């Protein structure tokens, strides 16, 4: 097991280096950051000097090597547009994104799983049909549109809920949380629903499909023949066996929720990392973009690792082969 984890960690570092390398290659196409950093009266020489000192004129490989060396020490430089260290910026924004993502993931699981199970057990009920049809909407509507629709209905027309920002936050050490204030919780509702809808429909459809599959297998038939009740059959035996793919997908989806929360965050002006990244693109703020992308790569890698480990725990068959390697 230890060897397995060690090997995966090594691979993870390679993955992150590759991500950093590719993103660095892309930065040449985002435009010139210097124009956003100085006003119109700044002379050409001053602009040139700034470029030189920021190392923007260095060859690609030199810039990349410097970035990697600094990143190893946890240093990502200073944001071009907000003029504070990127590490500080990330630390400020991370709690907002994690809270939003985790609440959304929980929402998606808590709603999606029971709906999926129900849809698998009562295949022909009208409620199942309703779930399936509405889930199509959830999958096909873009997040941006869902967000704007929710803002329009609950913010502008009904005026029940705030439509931007995080409300009041409380600081627990450096961690800012919106979960302890009323305005913070209210502010969380619309963005977390927006972010959860796609995941929820995905989980529901996945649970349903897997469950139907498992219900058709021999061991369920045998169980039924032995006279086990529906409840035990469905929840103790069938559900347990559907969980493996569900864990994988949910785990990996948590990564995507964090990574792709950027649309939701920008619609709701949610002060998380996704919004930070979108703003950084607009300003060609290279240090922020680089740090964000590497961090997201790290999150994906870490989640994959955890999912792999969970696999081994849930599925005894993997323990033999995986453990030996």
């Amino acid at each position: 097991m230890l060897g397995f984890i060690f090997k995966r960690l090594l691979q993870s570092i390679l993955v992150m280096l590759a991500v950093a390398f590719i993103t660095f290659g892309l930065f040449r196409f985002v435009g010139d950051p210097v124009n956003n950093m100085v006003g119109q009266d700044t002379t050409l020489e001053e602009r040139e000097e700034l470029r030189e000192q920021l190392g923007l004129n260095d060859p690609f490989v030199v810039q990349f090597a410097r970035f990697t060396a600094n990143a190893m020490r946890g240093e990502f430089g200073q944001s071009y547009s907000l003029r504070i260290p990127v590490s500080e910026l990330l630390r400020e924004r991370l709690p907002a994104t994690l809270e939003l993502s985790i609440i959304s993931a929980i929402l998606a699981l808590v709603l999606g799983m029971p709906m999926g199970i129900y849809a698998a057990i009562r295949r022909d009920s009208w409620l199942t049909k309703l779930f399936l049809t509405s889930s199509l909407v959830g999958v096909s509507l873009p997040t941006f549109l869902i967000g704007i629709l929710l803002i329009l209905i609950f913010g502008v027309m009904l005026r029940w809920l705030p439509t931007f920002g995080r409300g009041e936050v409380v600081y627990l050490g450096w961690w800012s949380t919106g979960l302890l204030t009323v305005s913070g919780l209210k502010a969380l509702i619309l963005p977390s629903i927006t972010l959860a809808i796609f995941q929820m429909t995905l989980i529901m459809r996945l649970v349903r499909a897997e469950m139907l599959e498992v219900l058709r297998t021999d061991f369920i038939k045998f169980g039924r023949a032995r006279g086990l009740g529906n409840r035990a059959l469905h929840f103790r035996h069938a559900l347990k066996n559907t969980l493996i793919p569900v864990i994988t997908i949910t785990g990996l989806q948590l990564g995507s929720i964090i990574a792709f929360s950027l649309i939701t965050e920008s619609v709701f002006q949610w002060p998380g990392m996704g919004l930070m990244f979108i703003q950084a693109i607009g300003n060609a703020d290279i240090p922020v973009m680089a740090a964000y992308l590497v961090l997201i790569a790290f999150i994906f890698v870490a989640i994959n690792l955890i999912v792999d480990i969970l696999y081994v725990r849930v599925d005894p068959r993997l323990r033999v082969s995986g453990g030996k390697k």
Partner: protein
Amino acid sequence: MKKTSKLLSALAVTTMLAAPASAETFKFAFQGDMPGLDPHSLNETFSLGFWGNIYEGLTQRDGNLALKPALAESWETTSPTTWLVKLRQGVKFHNGNDFNADDVIFTWERTQTEGSDVKARGGLISAIKKIDDYTIELTTAEPQPVLMEEMSFVYIMDKEWAEQNKATEAANIKDANNPGYATNHANGTGPFKVVERKAGVKTVLERSDNHWNKDIATNVTRAEFTPVKEAATRVAALISKQLDLVWPVPVQDWQRLEDADGVRPLAGPEARTIFLGMDQGRDELLYSSVKGKNPFKDIRVRQAFAHAINLDAIKKKIMRGAATPTGLMVAPQINGFSAALNTPYAYDVKKAKALLADAGYADGFSLTMDCPNNRYVNDEKICQAVASMLARIGVKIDLLAQPKAKYFGKVLAQNGYDTSFYLLGWTPGSIDSHNVYQNLLSCQNPDKKMGAFNLGNYCNKRVDEITSLMGSETDPAKRQALIDEGFKLVQDEVGYLPLHQQPLSWGAANNVEVAQRADNILDLRSVVIKK
């Protein structure tokens, strides 16, 4: 960090207790944030405007952009290059320190430090002599008739405070590990002080009790600023009364604001002139089907372009009637504007076609046009309209519309003015025509720092001469005559194709009264919340 936030919240509590019973909170949003609080770190409209609530210059602008005394009480020129300035007495910084001549001298020195982006403004002054605590003499290397105009954006900082906090140099972005104390803290003389700053998220100001000017209109005691990036989110937050004022509002959302209860669009002419520029410098255009020569060197081609563009159609169809078509490169609010000269080129397709045929391009030619798509009001749509208008006279435009970071990276000096035909907007920061002459109308001359934004290198020796004469001409009438002569020359030669002054586009709750300044700056001094 933790310590400071505690300190700040303690400060907030005390000020909350001290606030008068009629506490008014004003919540407003813009599309982006400023780069911290250091008032010398960026020379850009929004940031300068925001800092102007916290800090003050020797002079300031009122709601109509008229120049008013601020930290300078009065001034006079004692020779063409020296100014005697009386400073205001009894002014205190937010921390209680007194304002005096030392602070002005310190600020001037600070504007010349490496990280400063207001070097050009501060650099107009070559020496400051302290006569007594409240009298100084400014010396300029050359006569500077608009020196005090330029000083309205040079914000005075407290010498003692800066020294105590090691902020004597402007925040320097090159120093990756030291953002600078003044980036996250502020201590000005302005009517508002900073109580909270979360970069990119929120900045909270509160009314300062010890401001020298008791006559300013505002009744706002607390102002909360949030950057809101998405226009749709900004507008929704205004309509649902979560915000009191937002800008910019997309022109196409004006109707929505008019239909909604309790909010209104605030539109007015902005002092920014939008224009098209043509590469008249190169012997062959970089992006055109014409090889071996540059069609823009022929005045008939430039005239043809001028007559082919229908400014009224752009105004009606794209700007919802809210733009002001213009024949000049400066807006009416700018010193030096002349109504008599402000006649746009007449829209006349027949004439345009004839001119083009005369010049030998009866079959037209093709040309790439550079255009930003997120910088000015409806910039990309304007370019599309221009392209279709030029198509009528046979000029085929390939439109390259890009986000501003990419657009400016391509067309500006550092990339060798890589464009043949482009759209740009300009507001002279000094609210004076000389700035336009220097940056847009003079021949490109990097050594003299002239024509830096004259991307197409329009060049006329007489205009250059006028520019330098105007810079030192202190007699207003003679100066105006020079300005008029130059504008007339540029117009006759079709050096540029001015389009319009774009509209300011704000949205506000009905109970908010505010002076909408033509330089697109929100001055909290003018904000009154009615009951």
